[in-house]
């Protein structure tokens, strides 16, 4: 059965472009220009993935509300924000509300696609037995590629897809310096250096929440970051 993707976006051209791209990949896509119409549809049937803009017509933060609503209905439904807003504040708010990823609108369609695929794969992997899983282990770190989960010292780390890809890219070859550009490529994002810096910062914080002495991600000034085993 084809996966159903709901695009909640007031900018109809973008929504239709995304719809066309997704449909080409065999997804079933429905477009909602505002929150009420989306909610009405979700009352009847939840989609398999929701791609939400933050500003929805008159509602400046309609996307946030919608996200909160959806998360209440389903703990597992992948929610991705796609917004023109790029401030740290919006990103943090979006992710805190339970979104799985936060994308800015300058991201290219293939990148969005890669993310969608990854999210679906993670959902699938969660439902399948663990046996055939590919696991990378670096000291206390355990990376499950299929499920896109990260464990530190056997404790699960709550991360987004982007963060997972960055961690994986760093941890794959410990000691090797990864430039920001390389990390961006790995995470399927086109971002500026600052965004990578703040991603790294966030990742460090998440690890530090589990382990105060976490010091595995080193900064190589002027070059990038490396995993220090």
């Amino acid at each position, binding site marked *: 059965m084809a996966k159903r993707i709901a695009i909640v976006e007031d*900018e109809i*051209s*973008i929504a239709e*472009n*995304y719809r*066309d*791209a997704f449909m*080409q990949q065999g997804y079933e896509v429905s477009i909602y220009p505002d929150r009420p119409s989306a909610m009405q549809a979700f009352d009847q049937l939840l989609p398999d993935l929701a791609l939400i803009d933050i500003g929805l017509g008159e509602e400046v933060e309609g996307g946030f509300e919608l996200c909160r609503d959806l998360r209440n209905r389903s703990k597992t439904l992948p929610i991705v924000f796609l917004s*023109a*807003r*790029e*401030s*740290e*504040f919006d990103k943090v708010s979006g992710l805190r509300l339970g979104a799985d990823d936060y994308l*800015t*609108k*300058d991201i*290219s*369609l*293939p990148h969005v696609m890669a993310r969608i695929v990854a999210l679906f794969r993670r959902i699938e992997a969660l439902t399948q037995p663990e046996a055939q899983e590919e696991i990378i282990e670096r000291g206390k770190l355990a990376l499950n590629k299929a499920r896109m989960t990260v464990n530190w010292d056997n404790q699960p780390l709550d991360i987004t897809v982007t963060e997972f890809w960055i961690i994986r890219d760093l941890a794959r070859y410990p000691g090797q310096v990864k430039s920001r550009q390389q990390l961006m490529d790995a995470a399927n994002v*086109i971002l*500026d*250096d*600052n965004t990578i*810096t*703040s991603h790294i*910062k966030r990742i460090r914080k998440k690890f530090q929440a589990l382990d105060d002495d976490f010091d595995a991600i080193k*900064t*190589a*000034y*002027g*070059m990038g970051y490396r995993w220090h085993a």
Partner: protein
Amino acid sequence: MNLNKQLVCVSLLLLSLPWAGCQYLKEMDHSLRLGQEANLEATTKVIAQALAQNPAVLQPHGQLAQTTSKTATDSNAFYCFPLEAPVWADGYDEEWLEVPWTDYRSEGGQHSVRYRCAVSGNSLALFFSVPDKQVIYNNPIQSLASNGDRLELATGSGRNYIFTAVAPGTLTTRYLKNSGQTYRESRIDAAWADHEGGYQLEIKMPLALAQGRLSFQVIDESVQAVNKYGPLLNQDEAPWFTYQSAAAKQAISAFSQPGLRLLLTSPAGWLIANSGDPESQNPSQAHWLLSKLYRALLSSSDYNNSSYQNGANYADHQEFSAAQQGTGTSHWYRDPQRSDHHILSTAMPIEHDGELVAILIAEQSSEQTAGLTDQAFSRLFLLSFSVISLTALALLGYANWLSWRIRRLHRATQKTLVDGNGIIEQHPTSRANDEIDQLTHSYSDLMKRIQEYTDYLQTLARKLSHELRTPLAIIHSSLDNLSSQPLNEQSQTYQQRAKDGALRLGSLITAMSEARRVEESIEQAELEDINIAALLREITAAYRDSYQENRFKLTGIDTSTIERPENTLMAAPELLVQMLDKLIDNASSFTPADGEIEIAYQSTAYDICIDINNDGPLLPEAMQSQLFDNLVSIRKKGSDKAHLGMGLHIVDLIVKFHGGNVTAHNRSDGSGVIFSVMLPRSISYSD
């Protein structure tokens, strides 16, 4: 010239106040003097009329009845000076020293006699000094009075006394009667003394004996001839002599009053009597310095500057000449003793039966009125001094207040301009609803407008980047969709070009909002101990890879001491790196190919300095201060990369966050540019 000095200059105009006061005082002084003149003239006239009722007092011998005014003013008339000390007729003049000589010169001019004449009590004294080359004494054998050198004195009694000496010393006075007989006059004492080039004769006789008239002739006998000369020679009768009489003095002293001197003179100007003192009885109460100042100020007024001549004869005085003609006038004299005092002198003729009998002169000191104006002047001085001081103080205070307000406005404006970091100081306000207040408000408004404008510019980039992102996303997604369509080769080329353009637009938009994102990361920045030297060493290596067209040189770092704590600073490493990235990027873009970029490190007790020193074109002088402002770019147009003037602004933001400062200046030899970043060790956190 600042405001204070300008106001001091303006307040100098206040000095016109005392000047005007002085002008007024001069006027007052002038009219007071006129009043004093009129008053004195009136007084003198009354006294003169009173004296005219009693001419006998003035002329004890009844001269008036018998003589004409011509003889009364005879130039050869004797004037007898008053002499206090009694005279001893001994032929020597030791008691005569204060009496002036009178010269007699004969008509031809070949003979001259000097004599002195004085009245001492009731005695009349005469002293003759007769030049004579050859003194021939009287030979009593020939005759007692008719031979030898002799002097003949005529008196009002009609007797001509003859003085001749047998030998120097006391001599006997004789007179000739019409019968030719010689008589002695024992009431007259006389003495003969030889003198160099002649002889001296001293005579003392009772005043009454002269009966008001005196004249003389000298008879000089020599071997060849007998010479006679003297005023008597041309006269039928001896003229009246004038002397200071007690009766006259008594008569005028009846009219004397304080501060008034009365003088009675003969029509020829000889003093007959004087009484009183012209000095003011109410001297000025003012401080001597003030009165001196006052006199100095008034001295330029219309006083006639002739000096008062004291003496026995008043004929030279101007007012006297007028009185001789029959009119009473006044005249001002400078006091010869005190240069700032003046004497007012009024002369009034005393007439009896149409004849000029005597002249009354009244003198008064200018102090009489000066005392009054002195007081006025003191008050004026005090008043204007206090008014001027008060006004000057008030003006100065006012000027200070004004310039303080203006300075405050200036400082506030300057601060806003210099800071330029978006914090607008509250402009000073005051309750004074005046022009400066309005100016302050206008400035405040202006600054607010400028700030709003700057804010708008700053947010414009952000807003633009936000607003452009959505249409850009439409283009991007459309192009992405297009690429999955079957396209011919040409369409693919165009699609690729559109993609490239969209990507470039995307990076531009990202750059536009960079400053905002830096501000955000500054807000979230966390400080940690960073070894700056190690960081620089590491990052320079990275730059060598990234900017292969330039050479990099790192100086000031000693590898052996790199781990020392003085190289460590509390900082946000990502921000520092970002700042260095911007500086190096900026330096590299200006450095010619194969040019050198030197990163100089220096650690001191207070701060750490990083100089980015590159070859290349110099900074324009005018731009150096605003180089680090937002949206300021000094790059030439047409460079391939997008430059919005954000890079150095971001540097400034980051350095300011670390409490330091960044400056840019040209190398002194003009070969390049130096950017200096100073990071203090004890930072004051500011966000």
